[in-house]
């Protein structure tokens, strides 16, 4: 593996780690483990934990993938890996 490829892979892994942390926190965190605590907060008719479980986490998932697409396209350009 060339030095360049190694550096690219390392940055890629850092992005993955960051994004998957958020993935875990909104779904397993806010929607399941801390659901009951968050339910104390109400926004409109929604209890917050319930909202994360049945709405919020899904919206965050979509945003995460598009953020990933942007980050990776930028990374590909930086390393000259875009075709």
């Amino acid at each position: 593996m060339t030095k360049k490829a190694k550096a690219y892979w390392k940055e890629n892994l850092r992005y993955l780690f960051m994004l998957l942390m958020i993935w875990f926190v909104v779904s397993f965190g806010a929607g399941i483990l801390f659901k009951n605590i968050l339910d104390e907060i109400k926004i409109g008719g929604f209890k917050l934990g319930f909202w994360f479980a049945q709405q919020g986490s899904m919206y965050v998932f979509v945003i995460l993938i598009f953020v990933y697409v942007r980050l990776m396209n930028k990374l590909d350009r930086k390393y000259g890996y875009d075709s």
Partner: protein
Amino acid sequence: MIHSLMVEGIGIQNWTYILVGVTFALYISIAICSRAGSTEDFYVAGSGVSPLANGMATAADWMSAASFISMAGIISFAGYDGAVYLMGWTGGYVLLALLLAPYLRKFGKFTVPDFIGERYYSDIARFVGVLCALLVSFTYVAGQMRGVGLVFSRFLEVDIDTGVIIGMLIVLFYAVLGGMKGITYTQVAQYCVLIFAFMVPAIFISIQMTGNPVPQLGFGSQMADGSGMYLLDKLDGLSEDLGFAQYTNGSKSIIDVFAITLALMVGTAGLPHVIVRFFTVRRVRDARKSAGIALLLIVILYSTAPAVAVFARTNMIETVSKQSYASVPEWFKKWETTGLIVFNDKNNDGIINYVADASKNELQVDNDIMVLANPEIARLPDWIVALVAAGALAAALSTAAGLLLVISSSISHDLIKKIINPKISENGELIAARISAIVAVCVAGYFGINPPGFVAATVALAFGLAAASFFPAIVLGIFYKRMNKEGAIAGMVVGITLMMFYMIKYRLGWFDEVVPDKDEWWFGISPEGFGSVAMGVNFFVSVVISKFTSAPPTEVQEMVENIRIPLGSGPATDH
């Protein structure tokens, strides 16, 4: 006035014939326009599908009869617990987009067992991959054909078997003729039909109940009846009055909700018919982008489903609970004849007592009714009721076609071309692919007509099987260069065997006289959630065994380095 009379004059039945007929004609003409000329066309649509078209096709492929018909109903009875499906079946796309899709596209082959076979330099690994793919896909496809039959029987009043056969013929036609190419473009059309059919009633009902046209906001709004009460508070109250748990609190344990959500997420990312869709785009960056588009299109339906669940549940309780049986609306009687609503007047007072206590409850309502009968319960016009039938068929057919393609390519490509007869010509392989598709449709149709009792129970478990087998093997294959064939094969075999054992013991109960009680579940985890445990065991076994056996050959390690770099992903090839 005249217009509305004409519309009423047509009736639900004829509207259904018209809408189903028009959509079927559309699918067939698309199939004729996009015939497959080569194995590359047949397996991966020539790797020339645009990210948008692939995103739409993936979404239609993904959303099955279960998503369209059953999910909102399941949520409306499960309340908060229904979130396992919502998060599980969408969160998996994050894993797919970040951990699998780009690298598998770069790898550039035709099937998932292809990757397993090449990465683990072994026909045994490939063969294990084929077996897992067939097991997962067949459990899944039988449920789809059944769904097609059910929709036909309820809306067009043909019997279920005739419905299954009509569905088989349609799928046969475009899957065999067009392969992945035909399937992809029909799925694009099917996505449009199904999302329109799901959203229109949801928007109408949201306006009726809350005055808000956006269902996602509507179910968190105040009721439109002027009481100023929030809909969810109202439903929590209604549920408690009848002895159920509050709607916004579930009744499953936290660990089980956690395990099921994880198993569904990982299973989603490991399903061959979903993964293979990302082999059809041109470049690595297109694979990433189309995963995002697919999830966005899926979330449109998935974020609406919990709203539909709340509307339908509130509507149903208010319409039938404590009402006199003599005065129930027409839809109640109609669905009673299908056996999906059962009323048993235990205390002979002529009043429908719908309560949590099983000994006093007099009303059984099937999950599926919540979507199928919802437009009638809310008194929407006939054409909307018919639209739901066309949408449900689009959902079932698109998923069935995607699964059949995985089955046929596993057989023609991975078994025949790669293992049994490598010398087969391109034309011979294409014929083999078409014949396997025909056989697969017939087998699926057979299971649709004669469903073994365990199909319903096992469809949900297909995710556990995928999580326990493919996901670790693929992720380790990409992210752990040292992973070798011994580890991967052992991991897959142990993972899927453990999952099958748990499923047979605790869901089907074949090892005991009766299905064992919940208390006997390991760590309190249900069979649906056990895929997470089996996946963990697979990861563990794979890594430990590979530590004690020799490293993979240099050229395989170089291949792993190569798939990590997006540059130079050509069209999918055979060589």
